[in-house]
């Protein structure tokens, strides 16, 4: 039996709002094995991003347990969490989140700075990753000089540069056209073939179709967890 990279039990998250506590996740159980490619779908406000932020150790749950790569996250201190975010997980955002004043190469190399990697090694690895996403010749460019699809590829290169076991992508193609989305998805499939575990949130069924497993959220709970994507459950476009 392959080991679980992610094991989640009874995970809950409430946001405190002026109107009182709002439960965004109401008790989620999920296991994701190493090397899986999982798509998460669900209507807007169903708690997908909340869930991804918890998986990415960017936020802490209100209740429940999250075991990441065999270690309970609740037992980690802030520095441990930072280390996990830097080395075990690569996070890809809908809005790319590149640093505007840094060249593409510096953006990609930044996680390595925090992992105390030597300058020369950082350069080499950043170049390698930019080549991998097909943007090697733009290494010295600034993020605002390239297209959205290219920016997202740089963000993926940055997520990959520290050789994480897990890529978490929250609507990575949400800001991109269909053509570019397909290119990004092809990239994720390559990573999947290389053995990296991928969890991807999307609203589009054709994107989700690239995954072998679909998890569906509604009102803070998982309502479907299956091997393939049933067409009749397809999301209405937002």
């Amino acid at each position, binding site marked *: 039996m392959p080991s679980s990279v992610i094991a989640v039990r009874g995970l809950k998250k409430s946001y405190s709002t002026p109107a009182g506590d709002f439960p965004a996740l109401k008790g989620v159980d999920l296991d994701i094995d190493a090397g899986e490619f999982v798509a998460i779908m669900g209507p807007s406000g169903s708690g997908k991003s909340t869930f991804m932020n918890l998986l990415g150790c960017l936020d802490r749950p209100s209740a429940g347990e999250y075991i990441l790569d065999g270690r309970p996250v609740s037992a980690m201190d802030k520095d441990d969490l*930072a*280390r996990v*975010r830097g080395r075990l997980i690569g996070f890809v*955002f809908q809005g790319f*989140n590149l640093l505007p*004043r840094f060249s593409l190469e510096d953006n990609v190399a*930044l996680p390595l700075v925090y992992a105390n990697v030597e300058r020369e090694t950082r350069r080499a690895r950043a170049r390698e990753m930019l080549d991998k996403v097909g943007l090697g010749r733009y290494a010295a460019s600034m993020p605002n000089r390239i297209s959205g699809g290219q920016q997202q590829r740089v963000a993926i290169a940055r997520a990959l540069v520290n050789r994480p076991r897990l890529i978490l992508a929250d609507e990575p193609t949400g800001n991109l056209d269909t053509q570019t989305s397909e290119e990004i998805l092809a990239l994720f499939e390559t990573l999947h073939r290389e053995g990296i575990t991928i969890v991807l949130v999307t609203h589009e069924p054709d994107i989700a179709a690239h995954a072998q497993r679909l998890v569906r959220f509604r009102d803070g709970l998982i309502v479907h967890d299956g091997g393939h994507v049933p067409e009749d459950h397809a999301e209405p476009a937002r």
Partner: protein
Amino acid sequence: MIATLLGQAWHAMGANKMRTFLTMLGMVIGVAAVVLMTAIGQGAQLAVADSISSMGANLFIVLSGSTTSSGVRAGGGNAPTLTVADADAIAELPGVAAVAPLHPGSGQVVYGSNNWNTSIYGITPAYLEVRSWSLAEGVPISDSDVRSATRVCLLGRTVVQNLFGNEDPVGKTLRIRSSPFVVIGVLAAKGQSLDGRDQDDTILVPLTTAQRQLFGVSFQGSVRLINVQAESPEAMDGVERDMTALLRQRHRIRENQDNDFFIRNLTAVADSAAETTRVMSLLLGAIASVSLLVGGIGIMNIMLVSVTERTREIGIRMAIGAREQDILLQFLLEAIIISVVGCCIGLALGVGGALLANILTKTAVVISGSSVLVAFGVAAAVGIFFGFYPARKAARLDPIEALRYQ
């Protein structure tokens, strides 16, 4: 890691040059003010110390006092109550190192076609010793000059310059109040006194010559004042008490009568002058430090704005593995760079300004390595102190909150 962070801090500061410059300016002005004010303050202290040491150590001046004629008291030094005999008696007191009676006056001095009005002191040989005044050339006034009231004189630097120019005055004859005098020596330059008088604008003649030939005195041997030097600072109180008792007795002053002389402790005057300049230079430094403080607050202000503006950047950095201490260090470094670079510029300006003040206004300035070092240390400390709060605020941000920030 530090090198990379330094590079990034430089980068961040370069992104907003005008703001960085203005923030730095607060620091520049603060440091320049501290350096300049300290230089001027220490310069003033040095100038006072110089004129104190030029005055002679452990010194009293005994002034002939006021007489009371029909209820009107004249000022000190007006009544001829002191005599050379008083001076000799004081010299016998314990704790007294030297006594130099003095008869001052002033008059017109002529040499060739030049003439000059200056102060003329009738002195005894002890005077030069008491004032720790040496000769630049020639010979001093001797006891025999005093005994036989010869017409010889010693010239101060300023007098030489005004009457002789580049000529060597020793051996020349000049006229003081129309009487011919032979110049036997030139006094070493002494500079300003505590009250700002030019001490080199002086002619010294034998006491007896001054009394009998230049100014005339009401009775034989009377002098206007006596310089008394005590053996040590500790002896001064005793000497003052003994002198008062001695002079009261010699002048036959009854129990309920006022003294007909004044005793001034010059060392005490000098001490209070030194204290005054010390307080002044402290005050200058304190005022300047306030501007350094304001500069520091400026840094804190800008760093807080910067943290708010870059909240999203902080979130991104945290999402890719930055720890709290990494973020803290990043912002702290920016604050320190601003204050240290500002400090260097401020040092240059402050030192330059002090030198300029020295050249333009002849104000004495002292630029000590220690004050430069202190300014530098304070600037770094200001950077750390005022940079720490904003940096900690940045480091304590919640990653997800920071990422959500628009």
